[in-house]
């Protein structure tokens, strides 16, 4: 089990590129794209969280946008009450402090995941896909019904969150913060993948019946992974609300959930690194093609089809070469 050199080199190279990106864009006079790049990193974090349940645990969630939305709404609602001056339930004040609001976003999305997971994990396969979708749609309409918080139009943030005196409104600072969070999350989940917990998840994906026969109470491990995934996705949502200074029901739409699924599959399910690449590739393609023509989806569709058919282990599978076994 010698550590493989090639994947490590590629990862190091990617990190260098990511670190050099903002000054590079600035030098090219394309500074506008730094904000876009931050959004890519945030979606990569969301796709990464989906891969935890889908790639490692074999739970295909078609409702992960719900957690993105919950995270964004926590930030949005906190900010709204700061601006409005009215108290939240239990007389709590609004807040824009990232150290309060972002963990809260994770707590609320984690609790949402606990509720959704506790019910939908009693099923599997297509039923699981349908139930997660149904829950996300419920939250979508629920958010649209929050008249106080803009209904279908959502909430506009007047300020980005405050984090230890950092100027998050500065695109570069915000970009590097997102990059840092993504790198930490990726490293932690790669570590988790090889841990006892990760082994159990992958065992469940391969053969859940066998796992039970071995003595594993599989349901609680799946639920724990689902909650953890929801929390990470909620953090992505909190960041996304900051990136676009906006939280709306559209974040919870099924199209958003679908986009996350595409990112994971495109990049390479179960590899954790892959979905990050998938997010970069998909969003860069969308952006690039939209510049070319307004009918960009006509090009994107077949392109994804070709990729899905030719690279069954996704972009990361293509890049890293040989398949790994543990």
């Amino acid at each position, binding site marked *: 089990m010698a550590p493989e050199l090639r994947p490590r080199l590629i990862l190091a190279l990617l990190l260098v590129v990511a670190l050099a990106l903002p000054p590079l864009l600035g030098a090219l006079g394309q500074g506008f794209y730094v904000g876009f790049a931050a959004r890519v990193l945030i979606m990569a974090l969301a796709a990464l969280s989906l891969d935890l349940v889908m790639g490692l645990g074999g739970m295909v969630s078609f409702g992960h946008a719900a957690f993105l939305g919950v995270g964004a709404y926590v930030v949005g609602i906190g900010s709204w009450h700061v601006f409005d001056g009215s108290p939240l339930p239990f007389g709590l004040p609004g807040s824009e402090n990232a150290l309060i609001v972002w963990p809260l976003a994770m707590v609320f999305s984690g609790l949402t995941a606990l509720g959704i997971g506790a019910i939908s994990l009693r099923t599997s396969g297509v039923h699981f896909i349908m139930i997660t979708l149904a829950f996300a749609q419920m939250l979508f309409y629920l958010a649209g019904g929050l008249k106080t918080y803009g209904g279908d139009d959502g909430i506009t943030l007047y300020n980005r969150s405050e984090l230890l005196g950092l100027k998050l409104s500065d695109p570069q600072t915000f970009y590097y913060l997102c990059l840092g969070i993504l790198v930490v999350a990726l490293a932690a989940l790669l570590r988790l993948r090889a841990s006892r917990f990760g082994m159990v998840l992958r065992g469940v994906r391969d053969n859940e019946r066998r796992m039970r*026969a071995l003595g594993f109470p599989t349901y609680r491990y799946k639920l*724990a992974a689902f909650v953890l995934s929801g929390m990470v996705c909620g953090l992505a949502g909190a960041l996304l609300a900051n990136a676009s200074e906006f939280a709306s029901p559209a974040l919870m739409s099924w199209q958003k959930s679908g986009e996350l699924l595409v990112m994971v599959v495109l990049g390479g399910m179960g590899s954790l690194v892959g979905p990050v690449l998938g997010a970069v590739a998909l969003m860069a393609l969308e952006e690039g093609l939209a510049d070319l023509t307004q009918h960009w989806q006509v090009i994107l569709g077949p392109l994804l089809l070709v990729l899905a058919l030719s690279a069954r282990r996704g972009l990361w599978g293509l890049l890293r070469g040989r398949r790994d076994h543990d």
Partner: protein
Amino acid sequence: MTEPLLHTKGLVKRFGGVVATNHVDLQVERGHLHALIGPNGAGKSTLIGQLSGEMAPDAGRIHFDGHDVTGLHVHRRARLGLARSFQITSIFKTFSVLANVTLAVQAHQGHSFRFWRPALGDTALTGPALSALERVGLADRARDPASALSHGERRQLELAMALAGDPVMLLLDEPMAGMGPDDGLRMVELLASLKGERTILLVEHDMDAVFQLADRISVLVYGAVIASGTPDAIRADEQVRQAYLGEDR
């Protein structure tokens, strides 16, 4: 007379109008290799399914090692020391051979809410896993992907996984299914070496192997146990000869 390690009382399982398990009273003594034979469709797998906990009986009780396990989940029974292997090879194909057995060891070392330390770098897991692999003669394949194993080797891996948790009792569902003569011979040797050390309930079609290995044999026909006894007694049993061994007189 000590209490049998596993015994069932009046076990019944119906599928629609078909009685797959018909008031089965089975007793497996501690330390015995007990074989369960019967023609296809006799309900052997259904019975194993109820013993392991994957299927719930419609009536009757199952006692194992002093516990009434009738209502216990599969994973709870596994933790009590009841390990099973599957008729259709059921391994984790994307894992290495070692990782397959490591997972089986891990199941018996408390909870797995451990998120940081790499499991395969943990000798508390890989140590017992490697000795289980040695036991079945697969130690030299430990680092290979499980998908690269031959059919016979996969059956050996199945057994290593069942052994890895240091079980009190093994439920082996046709461990020799689909094996060639050489692999079959090796499996018989392996089972013979386990005899006496573990209590084993063996479902097997290979009659030579069964009569060679078993301390006790129970014969299942149409869901009911029609005879139970030593190999010699079973061989001499008229009912068994007629119903199962297919000798017309």
